[in-house]
């Protein structure tokens, strides 16, 4: 692996698009945006696309599938926030307002591809196919991630910021060494781009020419710190060229644009053109978690402004106008979302079945003598308590 090889494949793919290597790596001049906030399809010359950065509209069937996941995602966010208020969940970092990003990150992948989510990406994990109660296991205060990452090709949601991007690089690297055609989507937020691991992950992915899509949801806040204090860069997507990879900016509340941008990114990566950096502009509509008070650091007016750009109503309006969202289709979609919400209510209303004896089971492949001793101590305490 050498930088020469990296330069060669950038040069090759840019030639395919008939543009210079610089124009291939640099994001299009404008953010990719296919739908207006009111759901109107923007005129083609105002979509931000340009030669080498073409984004065809997804098929109606694909849009309906994505919209259904979007509606479920919104329902799940709001159901979980309610469950936290009722004391049935310990904590929930809601992605309310970011559901279009969540859905696109999972749906752009094919079977066998991997997703690396953060703690705010529950809807993406759900969309990847993980059962609702399994997704939310850690948020009800249990000690493990709840699902089998290998069964779903979905990593445990990462809490330490940005560390998971390097794991994504490693999964892609292992697959490449075995000659497998696996693509990996690695998610993070704007705050995470300040971490050193962000830099190391992008650099490693580019140097080893790995099929990883770094998908940054720029939701404008890292808990309370606004993006302006996070970075002086006018655009995160433009950081791509500094690593020798392609970047793109997309309206993160425009599901149609996201689906098109992410699908193209996955295709380019799968074809061996190396990693890509996608920055989605979106907004965290609610506080960081239920334990946070966002009134201390932002104005209501700002939140209201973003409410008008909501991803769900935008997509709904488009599908309505296009005649795709029949009454019957809409009812089915609502029904599916309600079924997931009910699943969560029923599950969360049952007490978690945790056994403290299990705490010692998965520290090592086999218990050390010291752990066996400590477990015996706890078991003895519990036995005496129960006696």
């Amino acid at each position, binding site marked *: *692996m050498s930088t020469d090889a990296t330069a060669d494949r950038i040069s090759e793919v840019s030639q395919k698009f008939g543009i210079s290597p610089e124009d291939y790596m640099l994001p299009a001049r404008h953010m990719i945006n296919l739908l207006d906030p009111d759901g109107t399809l923007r005129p083609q010359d105002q979509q931000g696309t340009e030669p080498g950065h073409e984004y065809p509209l997804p098929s109606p069937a694909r849009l309906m599938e994505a919209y259904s996941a979007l509606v479920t995602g919104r329902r799940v966010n709001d159901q979980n926030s309610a469950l936290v208020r009722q004391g049935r969940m310990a904590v929930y970092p809601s992605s309310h307002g970011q559901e279009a990003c969540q859905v696109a990150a999972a749906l752009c992948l094919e079977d066998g591809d*991997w997703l690396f989510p953060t703690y705010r990406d529950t809807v993406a994990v759900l969309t990847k196919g993980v059962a609702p109660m399994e997704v939310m296991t850690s948020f009800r205060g249990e*000690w*493990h*991630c709840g699902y*089998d*990452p*290998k069964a779903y090709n979905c*990593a*445990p949601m990462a809490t*330490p910021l940005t*560390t998971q*991007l*390097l*794991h*994504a*690089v*490693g*999964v*892609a*690297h*292992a*697959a490449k*060494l*075995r000659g497998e055609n696996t693509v990996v989507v690695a998610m993070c937020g704007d705050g995470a781009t300040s971490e*050193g*691991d962000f830099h*190391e*992950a992008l*650099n*490693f992915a580019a*140097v080893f020419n790995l099929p990883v899509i770094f998908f940054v949801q720029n939701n404008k806040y890292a808990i309370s710190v606004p993006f302006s204090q996070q970075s002086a860069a006018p655009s995160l997507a433009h950081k791509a060229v500094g690593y020798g990879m392609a970047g793109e900016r997309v309206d993160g509340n425009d599901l149609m644009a996201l689906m098109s941008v992410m699908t193209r990114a996955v295709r380019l990566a799968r074809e061996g053109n190396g990693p890509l950096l996608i920055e989605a502009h979106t907004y965290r509509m609610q506080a960081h978690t239920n334990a946070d008070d966002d009134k201390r650091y932002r104005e209501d007016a700002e939140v209201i402004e973003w409410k008008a750009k909501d991803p769900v109503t935008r997509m709904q309006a488009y599908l309505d106008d296009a005649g795709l969202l029949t009454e019957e289709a809409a009812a089915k979609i609502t029904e599916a979302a309600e079924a997931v919400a009910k699943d969560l209510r029923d599950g969360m209303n049952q007490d978690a079945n945790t056994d403290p004896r299990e705490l010692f*089971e*998965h*520290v*090592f*492949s086999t218990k*050390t*003598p*010291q752990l066996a001793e400590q477990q015996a101590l706890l078991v003895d305490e519990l036995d005496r308590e129960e006696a």
Partner: protein
Amino acid sequence: MTTTSQVNPNVSDATARAAAQAAAKNQPVTFGKALNTALADALTAEKSVVIFGEDVGTLGGVFRITDGLTARFGNERCFDTPLAESGIVGMAVGMAMNGMRPVIEMQFDAFAYPAFEQINSHVAKMRNRTQGRLPLPMVIRIPYAGGVGGVEHHCDSSEAYYSHTPGLKVFTPSTVADAYLMLREAIDSEDPVIFFEPKKLYWSKEQVDLEALAAEYEARKAAKTEGVARIARAGKDATLITYGPSVSVAMEAAKLAAEEGISLEVVDIRTIVPFDDETVSASVRKTGRAIVVAEAQGFASVASEIVARVQERCFHSLAAPVLRVTGFDIPFPAPTLEKYNLPSAERILDTLDQLQWEA
């Protein structure tokens, strides 16, 4: 040593080769060569083993421990990475998640600190937070400790940080045979292993037949080293409990003590995690006196932990408090001053005098 072919030029080629091999087997082997051979043998035995890090490819590592591996096994099995320790460990986590057995090198002890978050929050915890579904079989090799005249940031004994983290195994060999066997075991372990290589031992030589050792290991006939302390020298008057770079110092002290008529037992614990309480306790119960010898600074150290464990288990057998000979609680000194900080045989013997001997 003269080979048969030199004595008699008429012997057949095969005989000459056999004789040359026999001669090679009797050559002393360095600690570094044993590690290098273990890596090569692991690459041969298991195709999921991959080696990477800074300068480990073409150069063969700054200590040449990966010498010749890229040439022999190819750039996909042993390769250089960008200069970023968190990146190296983080990528290894992902590779281990996806079926590989990464063996990675941190160039020096103190240069591993940028990777601490990856090691502490992910390498150590992935098995646990996935209920055993994502084990991370990987080895992080760290050349460590002083005694080589290294400049600042090149001589740390950082084993306590890793030993304190649940989910990590911590190995540190002190002999040439152990260098080979323990590295093979570490690579075959289903758990992540922090593998501390005392850098002052890299050039030390012993008469070891690595080929025979390899055959024994692969036939599963080699005695296990993980969690099994080694009695490096048997004795009856007091026990020196030690590991890694301090084993040779303890052995020297035992030799000097013997000249004064004191019989010291030296226990090389080999693996800090898992810890062999049984062997250590048995030795101390037998001798009734103990000193822990370790190069790391003593405060809140592995040596402290060993002292605590010994007094918890052997209190009624002890004739004196368990003492420690460790590095001072200061940043590791410059090359010209390191000898004042390192545990020495003399300091061990002075400490031995304090073990409340009856007149």
